[in-house]
């Protein structure tokens, strides 16, 4: 773009004259390619691939940060089947994902469609919906802790406006997990809205207009043009949501520490405690493998749902 005629001469006396030997040119491109790619390959290999393999291996051992360890076969897994805390956290995490993912995706899509109607103040709305996302989970959790505060919190203040009796929210086993879900949905909306909005703006105007000329109403245009067009983005949002909801930790750590009892105990929290408080690394790794499998199943189901959707 900004190449001037002089610059190349300064830069590279070694470069082959244009067109003279295209094979050398391709060779130098390939060499440059691998050089540019090497840092990312090295980094991901060391910090992602090796750890994933290590989790699989560690889960078959009784390693606990010490010098000695032994292979224990699948006994970590069989122990997990009898572990009440693990059952509770797995169940809570799955429940959390099943509730939070569809609700937050639906709300986010609805908001994005609203924002896509060429409205005034788009920048303001976009920022407003995104504010919870840019805020650290710890900060978000702290604010909501205060809102759910049974004595003087906003939630009970709001209820009292309508004459309802105050609730104990996070302290009540029946409402603790749903209260956390509300925060999770609220916090995750921003990113999804922005991605959907970007996708909606990319839907072909021509297609929408010709559908309108053919007499399709708003709903038909949405179902037949918009919905298929944002398919890839739906999938991207779905995947990141699945990964995101299974990661829930900071929120729980700050708001409830898994309580009351173990009503809000989640998988990552259980893994964290087993690994770094009880120092049972092999055990925690087995737990992690199961989490991987569950996430894979979720993604698979997501794919199948999408495929079924496309075939309609």
């Amino acid at each position, binding site marked *: 773009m900004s190449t001037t005629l002089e*610059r190349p001469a300064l830069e590279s006396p070694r470069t082959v004259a244009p067109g003279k030997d295209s094979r050398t040119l391709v060779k130098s491109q390939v060499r440059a390619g691998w050089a540019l790619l090497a840092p990312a390959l090295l980094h991901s290999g060391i910090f992602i691939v090796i750890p994933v393999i290590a989790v699989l291996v560690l889960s078959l051992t009784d390693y606990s940060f010490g010098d000695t360890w032994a292979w224990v076969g699948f006994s970590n897994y069989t122990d997990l089947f009898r572990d009440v805390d693990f059952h509770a956290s797995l169940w809570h995490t799955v429940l959390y994902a099943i509730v939070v993912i569809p609700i937050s995706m639906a709300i986010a899509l609805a908001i994005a469609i609203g924002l896509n109607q060429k409205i005034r103040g788009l920048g303001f709305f976009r920022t407003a919906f995104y504010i919870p996302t840019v805020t650290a989970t710890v900060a978000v959790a702290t604010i909501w802790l205060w809102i759910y505060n049974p004595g003087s919190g906003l939630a009970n203040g709001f209820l009292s406006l309508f004459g309802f009796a105050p609730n104990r929210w996070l302290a009540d086993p029946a409402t603790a997990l749903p209260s956390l879900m509300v925060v999770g949905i609220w916090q995750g909306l921003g990113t999804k809205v922005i991605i959907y909005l970007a996708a909606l703006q990319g839907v072909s105007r021509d297609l929408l207009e010709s559908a309108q000329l053919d007499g399709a109403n708003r709903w038909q245009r949405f179902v037949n043009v918009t919905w298929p067009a944002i398919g890839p983005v739906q999938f991207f949002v779905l995947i990141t949501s699945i990964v995101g909801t299974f990661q829930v930790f900071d929120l729980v750590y700050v708001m409830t520490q898994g309580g009351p009892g173990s009503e809000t105990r989640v998988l990552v929290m259980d893994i964290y405690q087993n690994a770094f408080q009880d120092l049972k690394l092999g055990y925690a790794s087995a737990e992690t493998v199961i989490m991987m499998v569950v996430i894979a199943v979720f993604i698979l189901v997501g794919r199948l749902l999408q495929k079924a959707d496309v075939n309609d």
Partner: protein
Amino acid sequence: MTSATLPAVAGPSSKDPAFRPGRLLLYLVLSVGAVLMITPFVWMVLTAFKSNAEIAQFGWLPGELRWRNFVEAMQTAPFLRYFRNSLIIAVGETVFTLAVCTTAGYALAKLPLRGSKMLLNYFIVLLLVPFQIILVPLFLIVKSIPLFGGNNILGQGGIGWLNSWWGLIIPLGAAPLFTFLARQFYVSVPNELAQAARVDGLGEFGIFWRIMTPLIKPALITIAVFQIEAAWNGFLWPLMITTSDSMRPLQLGLAIFSQNPAEIEWPYLMAGTALATLPMIVLFVFAQKRFVEGMANVGIKG
């Protein structure tokens, strides 16, 4: 900034009266939504100004604006140090990520590598691995980085990157998501530009750095904003690998504030939280337009 997104406003609503009630409803719903999103923050800021007596009961406005809450909050905890630490981590991670992910993304998109499709799939699969899953071995790897923190060449005997800036910055930088994102942008830059530069005799690295990379600024901004946010809000990883206060970031400082439920100083906590959040909101307000363009490319182009 918002003006650029508005030009088409005049449109259907004024022409078509039937649209009017619908429009009004739309604005109403969106506004209620926006209020729901913002209320907790307004609440937070107002609380930061209150006295301990005032927060004991439900109420909105503080009796007086106690600016000294902010000053006192910063004095009770070493906030400035937490702030500085978060800044170091955020800047370090962002520079590292931009360097690694743009180079890799460019190579995947534009250079004739054998198996580049496979390599792309490799990064996409990695994108699905949540960080929490590899928590435990990642800790062990960081602990046994050779020749750091008293380790020998085999990575034993010392603490490696634990309690170090290296450990805080490098492992979580350069996420595959950003390599993927950068690649999506480079793909859409026309090849002719690179060809022309090649004919002019510019080297491959020169083409990458001077010709192609300046053209994907929205991607760079998107990656930077995402990475700064992630680093700024990081919690679990710093909690695991640091033991001393001297390197701990803001989020851990805030969490320590609320660790003992019996004696939380709500106004101080809220003041600290507000101060911690503000930079990220400002960042988004300034970057949002480019940021949205950036997001648009992630999912759309195969």
